[in-house]
């Protein structure tokens, strides 16, 4: 049996939106295994972002438990969550969220400085194919390049869990596939668990397990014994 890295146990999340209570996540349970590449699919409002936020320690469940490597983090203090994000997590955003005043290399260095034993900057930048662009500022780079910096920034910390929120959402098709390949590479070569949240169903084809969300619940978990390499995915 594979080892569970992070587990949601009957997690419910409700928001108060003015006078309306929104149940974004309803008693959801999910186990994510060490080293797997998981895709979470769903339309907007399905609860996939809420789930990502809770997995990322950015938001707390209203009820239920979240266990990371057996330790409950759902009721951990803010300082523990910061440490969790710092040491265990990597994050890739739809809109990159790079620091505009830092060059590509410096953006990666900023994250590297947070952990004790980061990967060598040169290696990471080379891995994402940016060794020649490392002195450029975000404003001087294309979206794909910025997303690669963002991946490098996440990877440099050697995270056990890499959370990706619509990583190809703002990119064209070709560039998107390149980014997915990079994520797969990190999963395979570095052994990081990768969770990709997207509304793009085609991307599901690259995962061994696909979670479909709908109205705050897991509607379906599909096993995919023959995942495709990103180059072969079409949308």
């Amino acid at each position: 049996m594979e080892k569970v890295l992070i587990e949601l146990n009957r997690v419910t999340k409700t928001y108060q939106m003015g006078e309306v209570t929104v149940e974004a996540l309803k008693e959801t349970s999910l186990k994510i295994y060490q080293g797997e590449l998981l895709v979470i699919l769903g339309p907007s409002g399905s609860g996939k972002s809420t789930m990502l936020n809770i997995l990322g320690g950015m938001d707390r469940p209203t009820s239920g438990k979240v266990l990371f490597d057996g330790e409950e983090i759902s009721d951990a203090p803010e300082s523990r969550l910061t440490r969790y994000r710092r040491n265990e997590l990597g994050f890739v955003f739809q809109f990159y969220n790079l620091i505009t005043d830092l060059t590509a290399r410096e953006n990666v260095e900023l994250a590297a400085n947070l952990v004790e034993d980061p990967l060598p900057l040169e290696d990471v930048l080379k891995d994402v194919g940016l060794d020649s662009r490392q002195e450029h500022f975000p404003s001087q780079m294309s979206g794909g390049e910025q997303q690669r910096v963002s991946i490098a920034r996440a990877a440099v910390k050697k995270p056990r869990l890499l959370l990706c929120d619509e990583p190809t959402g703002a990119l064209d098709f070709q560039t998107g596939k390149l980014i997915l390949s990079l994520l797969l590479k990190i999963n395979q070569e570095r052994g990081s668990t990768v969770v990709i949240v997207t509304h793009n169903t085609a991307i599901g084809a690259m995962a061994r397990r696909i979670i479909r969300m709908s109205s705050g619940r897991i509607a379906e978990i599909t096993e995919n014994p023959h995942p495709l390499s990103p180059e072969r995915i079409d949308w």
Partner: protein
Amino acid sequence: MSILARKLLRTIKNTKGQFLAVVSVVALGITVFIGMTTAYYNLDRSKENFYQQNNFADYYFQVIRAPEQVTRQIQQIPGVIKATGRIQKDVPLLKDNEERATARLISFPLPMEREVNRLHLLEGRVFEKNPGQGRVEVLVDPQFAQANHLDFNDQIYIGAEGKRVPLTVVGTATSPEFVYPIKDAATLLPDPENFAIVMIPLNQMQQVFNQSGEINQVVINLSPGADEDAVKKQVETILEPYGNLASFPQEQQLSHAVLQAELDGLKAMSQFLPALFLAIAASIQFIMLGRIVKTQRLQIGIMKAVGYGSQQILFHYTGYALSVGIIGAVIGTILGILLATVASSAYALYFNLPETIGGVNIEAVVYGFLLSLGVSVLAGLIGCRGVLAIHPAESMRPEPPKGSGKILLERWSWLWKRLDPTWKMSLRTIGRNKVRFGVVLLGIIFAVGLLVVSFFMNDSIDYMLTQHYQEEQRYNYMIRFTSPVSEYELLNISRLDGVVQTEAIFELPVRIHFHGRDEEDLIVGLPQNVTLRQLTGDEGENIFLPEEGVLIGENLATKLGIEVGDVIRVETILGLGPTRWADVKVAGINRQLIGGGSFMEITQVNRLLREHLLASGAMLKIDPGKRGEIEKALNEMTAISSMLSREKELDNFVKNLDSMIYFVGIMVFFAVTLGFAIVYNSAVVSFGERKRELASLRVVGFSLKEVSALLWKEYFFQAFMGIIFGMPFGYLMALSMLKALNTDLYSLPLVIYPATYAFSAIGGAVFIAAALIFTMRSARDLDLVDVLKDRD
């Protein structure tokens, strides 16, 4: 309410912290402007009215003694409206507690109707010319009456012509020349317990001093446009035979000079401080509005798309600044009028002006509003000019990332390479926002400078007092005789039990002539080996009394252009014996922070008078344990006209300085508010601009502290440079303030102790830190989830 007005109100509500901060800066500026301008206006008007109603003299002439009729002759001179003759004398005031005090007796002719320097009765009744039964009725100044708990018909005693003369106090009065009753320039502060202005009918004065039909002072009123110098010369010619001792214009009249100095200072401050505050307020609004326009780019685009014109939108955003201006002006006006009332009542305590005009000065209020609105609207229009460039279609697309580039510092690669990315981030942010950086830097410089100015006055006064009362004056008592005595007679004093040392002095009033100009001065003769008086040179160094020649006072030397080695012509105006003339070589220049005067060896002073071994007074050093006995013994000596205790003078000074604390407190409050407002506003703007970046750093794993540290780093340079430059800037502000305040009476040295710089630097660090901590409160509310959402 129009939609745009409602939108404006919401924008204000969303930025209420910043709005309040900038409103408070504007309000402070307007408070100071209206408060000080009104106080100035009220005090000046009270003064002018009082001077006019009571015919304040335009010129004073002092003679030894002259017949009363001479005033009629003077009144014939073209340009003279009225001449009044009178007698003025300082005499010992004999108090019950045996203490030595001084009464300045001034006579007034009755009836007083059209005379120069008329009295203004405050309480009681006017003295009678001949009350009968040998009674002499007088009026005294209100401070003296109060300090000595005098009731009407109480008697006070003076020493005159070797006799103890009782005077009956029938009321209190003032006159334009006693608005600020101090004895002489060296006193600086009123000492109402020991100095009295005693007003007495002329005939009684003449009788008490056996000077029937005589006067020793002529005061005149000039007609408008009269040639002051020509009149002065003619009066001096008429008075020549009677021993013309001194003549001076109204500007040099002591009370007037102090009042005028206060007015001048008030005027300077009423312009400088508001200008500073409004400039800072304008800069803050400039930064804030630029930012608001940027964040509302999409909304502006939509408004334009819907059909609002650029101008209309520009005015809408300028309305924000206008609101600041209006609210600031309203609050400022209310507080300003309060401040003016407080200031006016403080002046009423300080100055004997019978009618202190209070109330609102409409002109100041109108100018205050215009100033506030004008500056705000201007800052608003400039700050919001970005509105014009927004294109509706473009505004709907996300704004392209800001062009980031390398900054100058990066050329210094050996340093740059060693910097942590967070430092690089902060430095580049500064590089990208140079204007904002500059404005905030200036704001901090001003605020820290203002802190230096708040504190330095204490240092300068402390230095002046230490220098004057501890370094230079080393005696316990300075006694003066009613008339010069032989130095041998000082033995009677030195033999008193407890007197450790006695040194003779001779104070000789003179007129110094040099290159066709002349000035009055006091030459102080001291023994060659003087130990109870230290002299100071014009560089602040200790100097010694020369065997030959005179150490001329610095102010006088500057006025007449005298340099060391020059020969000056000295005319004695002692008032006793014949006038003597002599040429004296200038051996050096001395500096005195309080009062003035020149110094010479005492035997040389005697030689000027063709006298030998005379002293007009003495300096005493005593055994502190015997103070009581010695004071008693000295008070019993009728030959002594006055006795000054250095300790008591110093105490009086220090007591009067207590009110300084309010001034310091208010100024510190101003400075801190100013500094806080500008740093806070700019930090909120920087924070707002980088909210998303900072939130994404939180997601990456930065702790709250580390995110805050980024903002601290960004402000580190502004804080550091602002404090470093703020200190010399404060020095310069203090310097120009002193230039505006210095008078002939005293020259406050510019002395700023290191502690003041330290306090100012700490104060600066505190307001910067407070502003940043205030801003950081919002760092806690950074919405991490927000980062994942689409851009606005």
